[in-house]
């Protein structure tokens, strides 16, 4: 699946993505599904229907590309465990942070949980005027650190999760950042 995390970034070449994940005030277009974080929780919009679903806390979303988990408010390792137990492909976390140390703590919890429960986690943390994007995929990234993306700019990735008898494997290709 093709995933856009953050705001619209490509002008010259239009990327069509399966799922765009962002905060509600950041304009994005060109996706089949939109998962938007807001002060009250999350909103899921679809290009194929007028229906809108929303919620807060932990939820499981069923999309044509598989199951996805979303958690809003405050990251805890239990969310990652639940997402992995329920077979979610990715856990998206929307968190509002007021201090830099809270941001670092949220990133650390996401990274450790992603590796322990073998589930990719995308954190979209709002801190002041900036949105920090933190994308963890077990075994991927520089020196296999599990950290794929850690920045305030946006990224587009092709992410595939394959399940075998021995577990899950992840294949990630960065398309734009």
């Amino acid at each position, binding site marked *: 699946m093709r995933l856009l995390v953050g705001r619209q970034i490509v002008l010259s070449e239009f990327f069509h993505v399966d799922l765009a994940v962002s905060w509600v005030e950041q304009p994005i277009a060109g996706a089949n599904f939109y998962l938007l974080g807001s002060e009250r929780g999350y909103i899921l919009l679809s290009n194929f229907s007028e229906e809108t679903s929303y919620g807060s*806390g*932990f939820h499981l979303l069923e999309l044509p590309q598989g199951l996805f988990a979303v958690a809003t*408010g405050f990251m805890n390792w239990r969310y990652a465990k639940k997402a992995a137990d329920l077979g979610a492909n990715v856990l998206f976390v929307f968190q509002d942070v007021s201090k830099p140390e809270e941001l670092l703590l949220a990133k*650390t*919890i996401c*990274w*450790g949980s992603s590796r*322990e429960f073998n589930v990719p986690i995308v954190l979209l943390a709002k801190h002041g005027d900036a949105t920090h994007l933190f994308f963890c995929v077990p075994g991927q990234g520089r020196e296999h650190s599990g950290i794929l993306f850690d920045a305030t700019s946006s990224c587009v990735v092709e992410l595939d999760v394959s399940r075998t008898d021995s577990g899950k494997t992840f294949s990630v290709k960065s398309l734009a950042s």
Partner: protein
Amino acid sequence: MNPFSVRFWKLLRGLPPSRKRSEPNNVVRAAVLQLEYDPSLRNGRIFADFFLSILSKISSFMPHVVVFPALTDLFFVNGIWSLPFFKRFPKNGLGIPDPVTQQCEWFMAEVSRKMNCVVAFGTVHGLKLCGQGRFIAEKRVLVKDRGLALVPKRWLTNSEFLSSLVEDGIRIVVTPTSGSNVYNEWDDKYHFWSHAQMVGYYSLKATLVGKVARNRLKDKACVCGPIPITQNHDGYIVRNESLEGSAVLLAELDMEKLENFLTEQRNKFNSLIQ
């Protein structure tokens, strides 16, 4: 008294007597060691000087908790053993005769009694915890009314297990360990640093480095805590920066800050799941 005990008594006699501590009740003092195994310790005098200098540093800090690395008995082999009798006793793969391990255990128990503190360490027979001169079989003890648990490294990546410890009142997790030929910063962070953030406790890691049985062990001792309550907001109270050499890390653990952190985390999570 046998010759080994005489050397131990000399070592212990060199320590300053236990003093009454006068710091606030919410502070737990911890001494965590990174020990480099050096083959030159085969000489009894060098061994005694090395250990005495380390114990003097620890003792002057008046710690409540002292954490030695895994395989601490390795240091006692060449330092105290009388070579002509070496082959008479059963040995394990590292060449540590059982009586040497027993002497090491006895010595650590004496250190805990003499310094009036809890001592955690490892030998070829596993990890041990002792306090006031006695071994603590359940590997858990109260230090200034706060729970301390001795946890092997392999359990440090199990959030459920660690959370159950914290729910049972454990606030300090101590782990004597040893380094490896290839040091991986991310693996180290994953075990000791990230789970202290995820679950919320102070993690004390003592480690063995140096040349052991054709291996060149590398590692870094550290004391970790949740990011918001560490001074530099990096999740480390103190960390040795070098992969080799011996070091004594001294840390004051503020238990009140940790309790406030845990209460805040619990309230935030509970408000979300209601």
